[in-house]
């Protein structure tokens, strides 16, 4: 009897949990990261549009058609070879990306964003990185989630509804789960592939990657492989990090370190290997491992630390005799205390 009651209680608890939207702050941040990446692509490519995405550029329309046919793919750019139409789809895609990034009517703009992003990426598949692959996968899941609840025009104008029906909340939560599972899949499969390779096993893989001319962009890169120990530690460290990511993100204490590790690893990939936007997307994706309450608590701690730093700076300024600078004068005026002699 009591067993049945506790099961009922447990089920009720699960139902209560599932009928409230989770990680809405994280998804809003993810929306901004993904949207910004596409916004950079669109704005940078305005002057390269014909070369990268046009009919007379790298991939002529006939080749594009052939590739789409062989992949059973779809793209809005496939509907007409007219240059005017191709340009129109590109610029409408830019407008859609802006609306998605700023969170304007996010429910509709997220669907349009997926459609236009997918179409753009299919227009020239030679241009894609793993980051772009992740973008269109995450954009797909974001269509089903509430990603406009924060930092959006929807939120400021009151269009975003924090309270919603249990079904909508459940779909949102499934989308959140799908995103976390997808990211876990990325890191886990990547680690498994690496573990099969002899160069990853003997700890020299990173050397070969950094020695390739297209990834050997920094004059400091040699520091990573000059020492055998450093090269091995970094190579094995990459595999261990990728392998452990799906397991460590569930623990409240380990997840900040996982996120910091990911930021460090992807920043290095961005700088040393030139894969800046790939890294940007992966760094942004780390936010989904945090609950809303955790993000609020971190933000409060950061504000507190910033406040303390500002206060100590203000306290130091009169003693430092920097009254000649405009900032210090303004600070002293606000404090209404004469500068120390």
């Amino acid at each position: 009897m009591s067993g049945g009651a506790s099961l009922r209680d447990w089920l009720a608890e699960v139902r209560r949990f599932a009928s409230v939207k989770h990680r809405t702050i994280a998804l809003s941040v993810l929306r901004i990261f993904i949207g910004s990446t596409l916004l950079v692509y669109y704005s940078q490519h305005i002057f390269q549009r014909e070369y990268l995405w046009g009919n007379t550029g790298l991939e002529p329309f006939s080749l594009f058609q052939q590739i789409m046919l062989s992949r059973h793919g779809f793209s809005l750019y496939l509907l007409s070879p007219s240059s005017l139409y191709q340009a129109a789809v590109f610029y409408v895609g830019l407008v859609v990306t802006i609306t998605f990034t700023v969170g304007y009517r996010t429910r509709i703009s997220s669907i349009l964003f997926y459609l236009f992003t997918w179409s753009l990426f299919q227009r020239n598949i030679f241009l894609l990185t793993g980051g772009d692959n992740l973008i269109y996968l995450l954009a797909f899941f974001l269509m089903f989630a509430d990603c406009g609840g924060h930092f959006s025009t929807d939120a400021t104008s009151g269009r975003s509804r924090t309270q919603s029906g249990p079904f909508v909340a459940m779909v949102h939560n499934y989308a959140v789960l799908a995103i976390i599972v997808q990211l876990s899949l990325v890191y886990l499969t990547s680690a498994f592939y690496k573990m099969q390779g002899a160069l990853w096993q003997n700890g020299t893989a990173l050397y070969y990657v950094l020695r390739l001319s297209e990834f050997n962009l920094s004059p400091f890169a040699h520091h990573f492989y000059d020492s055998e120990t450093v090269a091995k530690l970094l190579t094995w460290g990459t595999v261990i990090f990728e392998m452990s990511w799906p397991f460590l993100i569930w623990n409240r204490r380990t997840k900040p370190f996982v996120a910091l590790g990911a930021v460090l690893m992807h920043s290095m990939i961005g700088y040393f290997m030139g894969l800046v936007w790939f890294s940007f997307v992966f760094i942004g994706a780390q936010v989904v491992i945090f609950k809303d309450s955790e993000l609020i608590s971190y933000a409060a701690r950061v504000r507190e630390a910033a406040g303390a730093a500002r206060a100590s700076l203000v306290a130091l300024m009169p003693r430092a005799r920097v009254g000649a600078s405009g900032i210090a004068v303004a600070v002293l005026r606000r404090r209404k205390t004469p500068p120390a002699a």
Partner: protein
Amino acid sequence: MSPLKLKMANLLDSYVNPYFAQRWNFFAPTPPTFDIVLFARGRYLDPDTAEIKDSEWVDVSDTLIDALRKNRLTSLFHAELSLSNALVHFANHFRKDARTFLEKDGKKYLPAEIPADVDPADMTVMRRTAIADLEITYPKITFTSVQLGIMIYTLPRFSERRKGLTEDPAALTFVAWQPAEWVPPYCCYSWPNPSHRLRPLWREP
């Protein structure tokens, strides 16, 4: 594979590709141990002498990599990426095509020249990138045809990592001349001294 597994694999494949494609084997299981470099030269009719002339060879790969080296946020990143992707796919395709190697005494050799219709999709991207580069290098010339050169450099082994990269390619081949269609040149990149990217011509095949 059992019929059930085969059916499941097909089902899974039709779900995953293309909309949920998962390609996460970043440099795995084995990272490349060689560099592939694309060179190109163009053929044109000299209006002054009415002679058909060939331009100098241009290092197409280095033009774009250098742009990225100078600015990680360059808008040429995707141009570089497309060339790099095409070259890697081409190299993979290359090994499977019987026309791209000669066999002698049980060893495989690259022929001096390979046909232009090997891997047409990647060849299109490589050719068009090369034409765009040639158009920027020689803005006053209209090319009628283009020839690509592919050089493969083997990276020093890890135990020899302090050695510099070798000047001599491990493999070198030319692609047959192809018609040069007009390609809109990529923008936002200028060379202070265009001559420095023209390499002295190596020995013709």
